[in-house]
């Protein structure tokens, strides 16, 4: 036995992929041509796996703000929010996020992972209970494991199963934290948040919703699934990221609970890391404003999502359960998924290859994410690339 034995399965699969000449994990983007096109692993491709939902990464206003921030404030803060790393702009972004979400308290984090993991690991502790959706993101699982709380899963997006779990807890629901996501990252399915909120109202506990993949997409103001479902008052904490709709990196938590200001000082992933760089904060602030000023981005995003979803479904692929900016094709045979991923790249479409345990089942996924910046023609080219795969593999997609 050695320390390295446990990595052998990874070594094996890397060797297998190398033999096939495929590099799906850590594919190299050699040159970005726009928000939707790049040279990846030597192939000119349409980017259909970037989570750049609103296509704001190359927005001239965002870029100008980032440039100005670099010139005026330097390349980094070089310190924690608790020490020298709180700049006036961090506070402004927190205020702007609070106003956008109509919540009184906000924390900005250096990454979405730090936000979700930090909140999940800090809100509940030893003696408390966390009840989380089984398909929760790794950042949530990492956080709850660190929390020291008792951790119970409920079946994915199954309010009846959640209800059973809370009933079994009895009075312990008073110190129970329920964690779900708005849109789930792998298949793009939405949580049945109205039903989940109703269960929470009946049994008690607090509710944290990760809206990482739904910010700017759903609800009258674009606040996410909670707003769309009309249950924001039942959601105690919303967490999310700047690395998708807002085209930067970073994360946040918003809440009406004044205790968030005290919790801030107990979150290790907030304290023991450097704060977001000035350029990141600057472009995020502009992107947050543009997201609100340009509802047409959202409309284009959903039109593109519908177009890709319909196109892949008509080709006979097993697509996600519902239309969303994440459109995932399920492939039972892992080797088929790998071969198709490579073929798609060669045919000019970059998508994400997802294999267990990152996928929610034992199947693999060719996960696409669409952008408001995609033209309908680009969406059609992505569909065409999938269409070309058919003769070899429709049997495997059944």
């Amino acid at each position, binding site marked *: 036995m050695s320390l390295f034995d446990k990595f052998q399965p990874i070594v094996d699969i890397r060797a297998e992929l190398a033999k096939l000449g495929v590099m799906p994990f850590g594919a190299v983007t050699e040159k970005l041509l726009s928000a939707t096109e790049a040279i990846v692993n030597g192939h000119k491709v349409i980017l259909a796996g970037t989570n750049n939902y609103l296509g704001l990464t190359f927005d001239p206003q965002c870029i100008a703000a980032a440039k100005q921030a670099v010139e005026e404030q330097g390349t980094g803060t070089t310190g924690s929010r608790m020490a020298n790393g709180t700049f006036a702009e961090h506070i402004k972004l927190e205020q702007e996020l609070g106003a956008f979400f109509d919540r009184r308290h906000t924390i900005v984090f250096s990454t979405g992972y730090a936000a979700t993991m930090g909140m999940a690991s800090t809100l509940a502790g030893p003696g408390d209970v966390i009840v989380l959706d*089984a398909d929760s993101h790794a950042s949530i699982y990492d956080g709850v*494991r660190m929390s020291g709380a*008792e*951790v119970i*899963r409920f*079946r994915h997006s199954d309010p009846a199963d959640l209800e059973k779990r809370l009933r079994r807890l009895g009075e312990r629901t008073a110190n129970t934290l329920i964690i779900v996501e708005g849109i789930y990252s792998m298949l793009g399915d939405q949580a049945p948040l109205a039903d989940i909120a109703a269960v929470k109202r009946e049994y008690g506990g607090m509710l944290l919703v990760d809206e990482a993949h739904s910010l700017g997409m759903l609800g009258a103001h674009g606040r996410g699934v909670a707003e769309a479902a009309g249950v924001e008052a039942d959601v105690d904490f919303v967490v999310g990221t700047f690395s998708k709709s807002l085209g930067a990196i970073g994360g946040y938590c918003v809440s009406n609970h004044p205790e968030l200001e005290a919790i801030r000082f107990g979150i290790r992933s907030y304290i023991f890391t450097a704060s977001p760089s000035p350029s990141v904060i600057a472009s995020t602030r502009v992107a947050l404003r543009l997201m609100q000023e340009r509802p047409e981005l959202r409309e284009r995003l959903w039109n593109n999502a519908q177009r890709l979803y319909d196109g892949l479904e008509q080709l006979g692929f097993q697509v996600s359960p519902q239309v969303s900016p994440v459109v995932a094709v399920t492939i039972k045979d892992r080797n088929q998924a790998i071969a198709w991923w490579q073929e798609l790249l060669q045919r000019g479409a970059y998508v994400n290859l997802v294999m*267990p*345990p990152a996928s929610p089942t*034992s199947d693999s996924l060719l996960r696409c994410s669409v952008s408001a910046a995609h033209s309908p023609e680009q969406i059609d080219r992505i569909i065409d690339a999938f269409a070309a795969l058919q003769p070899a593999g429709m049997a495997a997609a059944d």
Partner: protein
Amino acid sequence: MPDYNDFLSRIYEILKPFAKHGRILNEDSELVTELGLTSLQVMELIEQIEDHFDISVPLNILPDIRTIRDLALQLEKLTN
């Protein structure tokens, strides 16, 4: 309250399909290394136990479980 033997017999019942090549399940059977359960299958096993006994099994106990005996003992501890 179900006891150790109740949990044991239920686990045997659920894991029957994993007793390949005529192998007989016993308390020392290791779930992952011997029976070949994936992490997803371990979770499905737990869910079936939870439904049957109307209990919730915290994930916290999983690192301590390698064998069928470990699981039955942990379940007994949990419910008694």
